[in-house]
């Protein structure tokens, strides 16, 4: 081989060694990831070594996972790969997310709800649950506590023209209609935001759902908050607080969760920006002897929770996320409560309970809350 070619070969080989060592070197020198990933994922940490773990292979298994999750530049590799899948195959690498028309992203569950592909009355827990809901609802009312359901809209119900195949026929019956028929017959109080937004979307000047988000836009959230607070005031038939919303501003910088699915895609290039409306919630005064409020809800309540809590609108306010963890932390009991203890605390503490959930999750309304209460009342009798 000629001397020149030999030098080139040597140079390229040394360069190859440097390149192949770069990721490990980056992790050693600076383990903080470039452009950290967003969304829900579990990152594996490096395990501690022990001979027993080595012999049974669990150490190696965990170590390999940790390497795959932490190697230098891994976030850039993931973003590049996701970008390729998104741009070429229109495939989001986020579980249960679907790309719709005109850049709209959807959670598949809302499309299924709209198209009725999940509609199977026998499958619904709701048929088994409604007896407990009714019984607990009436018993709570007898104990002086009111319960109201707030039904949040699913994105596909507001933008049926933006789902991937908008020509598919939309059935008349779905979980929402089933629930509303039953609630009307059973005289259960419901604030149906789904129906409100579907009927009034042409009159609302700003997007109800952001293109790249799962949840209501900040602007639509402010409408929900306003309606909820007014409902509570009307219900207790007295003035509870004075508040107003600041002037609406338009911004293409997404605030809060307005781009939550878009961020979770973890793409290399940013997605097209969208102009959204924002207005601030300002509380002028809170009157005394306001009721204590319990909200049992899903992720749609997080945006409202911060506003309600930060402005001290209720002397005692708790948010039970899917009837599981209680927020804020200060209200979490130090020791684990039994179902009965929890029921008693709930009856004694709160004046009103709001069950806030989306239209496709109504088959599990309350996430077991009414079952526990019904059991408590049954035993009590």
């Amino acid at each position, binding site marked *: *081989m000629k001397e*020149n*070619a*030999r030098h*080139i*070969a*040597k140079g*390229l*080989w*040394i*360069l*190859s*060694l440097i*390149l*192949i*060592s770069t*990721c*490990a070197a980056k992790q050693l020198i600076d383990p903080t990831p470039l452009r950290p990933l967003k969304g829900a994922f579990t990152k594996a940490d490096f395990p501690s070594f022990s001979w027993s773990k*080595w*012999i049974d*292979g669990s150490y*190696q298994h965990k*170590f*390999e996972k940790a*390497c*795959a999750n932490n*190697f*230098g530049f*891994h976030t850039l*590799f*993931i973003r*590049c*790969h*996701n970008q*390729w899948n998104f741009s070429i*195959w229109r*495939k989001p*690498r986020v579980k249960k997310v679907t790309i719709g028309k005109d850049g709209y992203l959807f959670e598949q569950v809302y499309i299924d709800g709209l198209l009725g592909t999940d509609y199977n009355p026998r499958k619904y827990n709701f048929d088994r649950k409604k007896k407990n809901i009714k019984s607990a609802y009436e018993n709570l009312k007898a104990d002086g506590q009111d319960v109201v359901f707030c039904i949040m809209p699913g994105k596909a119900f507001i933008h049926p023209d933006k789902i991937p195949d908008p020509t598919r026929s939309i059935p008349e019956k779905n979980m929402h209609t089933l629930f509303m028929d039953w609630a009307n017959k059973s005289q259960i109080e419901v604030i149906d935001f789904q129906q409100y937004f579907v009927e009034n979307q042409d009159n609302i000047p700003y997007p109800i759902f952001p293109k790249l988000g799962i949840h209501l836009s900040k602007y639509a959230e402010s409408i929900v908050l306003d309606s909820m607070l007014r409902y509570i005031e009307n219900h207790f038939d007295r003035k509870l607080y004075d508040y107003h919303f600041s002037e609406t501003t338009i911004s293409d910088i997404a605030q809060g969760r307005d781009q939550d699915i878009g961020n979770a895609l973890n793409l290399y290039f940013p997605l097209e920006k969208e102009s959204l409306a924002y207005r601030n919630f300002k509380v002028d005064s809170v009157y005394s002897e306001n009721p204590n409020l319990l909200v049992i809800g899903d992720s749609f309540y997080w945006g409202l929770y911060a506003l309600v809590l930060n402005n001290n609108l209720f002397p005692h306010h708790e948010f039970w996320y899917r009837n599981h963890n209680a927020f804020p932390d200060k209200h979490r009991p130090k020791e684990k409560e039994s179902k009965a203890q929890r029921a008693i605390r709930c009856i004694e503490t709160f004046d009103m309970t709001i069950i806030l959930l989306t239209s496709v999750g109504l088959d599990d309304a309350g996430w077991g809350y009414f079952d526990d209460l019904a059991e408590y009342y049954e035993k009590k009798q």
Partner: protein
Amino acid sequence: MVFSSILFLLYFLPIFLVVYQFLSKTESKNLWILLASIFFYSWGAPWFVFILISSTILDFHLVKQMYNCRDLVIKKRWLITSITLNLGLLAYFKYSNFFVENINSFLTMMDFQPMAWIKVALPIGISFYTFQTLTYSIDVYRGVSKPLQKVSDYLLYIMMFPQLIAGPIVRYNLVADQIKARQEKYDDKLNGIFRFSIGLAKKVLIANQIGTVIDPLFSDISSLNTGMAWLVIMAYAFQIYFDFSGYSDMAIGLGKMMGFKFPENFNSPYISKNITEFWRRWHITLGNWMKDYLYIPLGGNRVSSTGRLYFNLGFVFLMSGLWHGASWNFVLWGVFHGSFLVLDRLFLIKLNAKFGGLFSIMFTFTLVVLSWVVFRLEQMDDIFLYYQKLFNFSGWEITTIGGAFWITFCSAILFSFCTLSRNVRVVEQWMMNTPKKPIGMILQFIGTWAILLICIATLSTSDFNPFIYFKF
């Protein structure tokens, strides 16, 4: 640890190569390869590594005794002892479960109490390990090669991480001289990493992508119609080819980076015109091993009757099937191929020739695809159901397959059959061999890094990464 894992690609390999680069003497390089190989093997089989090392050391001394012995009878006894040791390990770890399960089935059928038995775990790569140790003792016995002087060199030959787990089966006489002294060239190393990246792409970008789609379909055979059944088994044919040949490419490439020349294991097997040719192109090192260490000792072609010749062929393929796995489906797979080898000799090659090359290739490919059903499905009920689905013409609608799969599937077809073109074969030769001109080196370097970056990006988001041939 598999080659297509982040741990291997971005941690093990860089550390190994960088240290290797700084070592100058062959002895120290060999020692480093051995240490890395022990670590590599113990990562996946932490307890079996002790058995592997001790049996290898014992075998080294047995073969040394055999070589030093002048009495032919005693020499043969040493050989038999060495073979018994190696085959005994294989029999115990790979076949004892199968043997006991069948005995127990028979006992249960006869209303007897089945034997109590704790299942033996199969250590990775034991089949390849056994075949390599056998070549060492038999080659030394035959006088093809002299035994190694140092036990560490023998351990290196047996345990070298590129080929220990899934081949290619490197015969002792092929690498004996390379272990003692080898010439390392930078252009070979560059071609080695290029070859490695091609193997990685075959595995990560084709085999894994196909596997992700078809694996769930194999677990629900009853839902397949005829069209889907054909598509899925054809896709499996490409999956196993790109998986296994990709692994072989990676092993050969790694060997080149260290200065070793390992034998080729595949040569476009799906363009074969008959099953006999297929076995000259598919898993070449296994076919050659079977020929030299089993078929020829049985008498090979030089036997008194054609009946004996057919028996030899059938027996070799029965053994080949069993080598792949201790299960009746692998025996059937071996019988399937053995039968067509006999039919080739009887009339099939001549008959195919009358219909032309393209027909022969399509016919042979169809036979091979049909044989993969038996290879892929372990349960006899599933195998019969699958053949039923293939031939009951229950519909041709292809559903539940996404667009990306079709691109991968078509690429697999293209890469499997493109070597029918002479021009492509020229390109393939260029890729497989070390370029002599700087422009060739630069092109291979750019190709290497483009492929490696795509593969790393794919691996970083994928959990699906099993190697099919690891279980053998």
